[in-house]
């Protein structure tokens, strides 16, 4: 076994540990972003493939978990934008088409209130959707969110605030 093979083996053992420690929580994060199980499965797999290919470029400037969240966020948004282009190009800045998908999803267990909640989240633009999902569902600190999404804590707080207001307005309108 030459040095390169040894390094690859060491990397693979390290990477397997990373996968085991992160894949479940990443799945739930991606699932909340893309809603459909099959889509979440694709995005999760692409996230780990990208992480494996770029493992050597990971520079420990953030935690490995934040790095994976960053890749997953980009993959999820790319996936949603691709889907948006194929489904409906006139659906505004949010991902409204996800609400229809949700009703048809066999693996959605939510009641009517939860369905409405998901519909409200689906109206959020890309950045607010990411910020809201990370803060509300993943319960990330703003400092961690900066590592994942970039920008400043102030701008992330503002995005979260706008997202919450939009969701509340959605429910008032529905009444």
């Amino acid at each position, binding site marked *: 076994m030459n040095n390169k093979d040894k390094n*690859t083996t060491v990397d*693979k053992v390290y*990477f397997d540990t990373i*996968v*085991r420690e992160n*894949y*479940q929580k990443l*799945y*739930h994060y991606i*699932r*909340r972003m893309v*809603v459909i*199980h099959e889509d979440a*499965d694709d995005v*999760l*797999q692409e996230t*780990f*493939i990208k992480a*494996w*290919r770029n493992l050597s470029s990971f520079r420990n400037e953030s935690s490995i978990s934040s790095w994976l969240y960053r890749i997953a966020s980009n993959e999820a948004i790319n996936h949603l934008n691709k889907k948006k282009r194929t489904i409906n190009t006139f659906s505004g800045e949010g991902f409204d088409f996800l609400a229809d998908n949700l009703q048809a999803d066999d*693996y*959605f*267990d*939510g*009641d009517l*209130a*939860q369905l*409405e*909640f*998901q519909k409200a989240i689906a109206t959020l633009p890309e950045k607010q959707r990411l910020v809201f999902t990370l803060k*509300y*569902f993943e319960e990330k600190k703003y400092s961690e969110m900066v590592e994942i999404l970039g920008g400043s804590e102030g701008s992330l707080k503002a995005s979260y605030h706008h997202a*919450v207001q939009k*969701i*509340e307005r959605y*429910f*008032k309108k*529905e*009444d």
Partner: protein
Amino acid sequence: MSNFDINKFNEKETFRVPKGYFKEFEARLERRLQNDNDECSNNSKGRLMPLNILKLVVVASVFFLIFKLVGYFTFDLASDAYYKKNKLAISAKEKINSTDDLYYYYASEMSDSDLINHQINSTDKNSEFSDNEAFEYLLATLDDYDIAKHY
């Protein structure tokens, strides 16, 4: 829903994961990573290598050709012209010893040059030129070719 308050919305887990999904995912990812590795090592071992070398050879050839063409049109042609004129002047210096020599030199060697012919016609071949003057005259005639300054 009129009393909706996001902070009191506690039902967070609304998505169900199919049974056995995570185990199945782990196995599938393992296979995909293995395929990815095989593909990468195949690419680096052979399939792409000859193609890369071929690309390199083609690019190098194109650059070489361009370099040669530019060199030919700028340096080779210029130096060739310079060499011919230079040779002409050296030859003239060797052959011209008198005004008559100058005349015959013009007539035999340079009769095809319009410029020199013009100078011959406008020159009185019977006038007295010293050898040195004859050569100076020739150089002045060739001055248009930018040769004189080399002597």
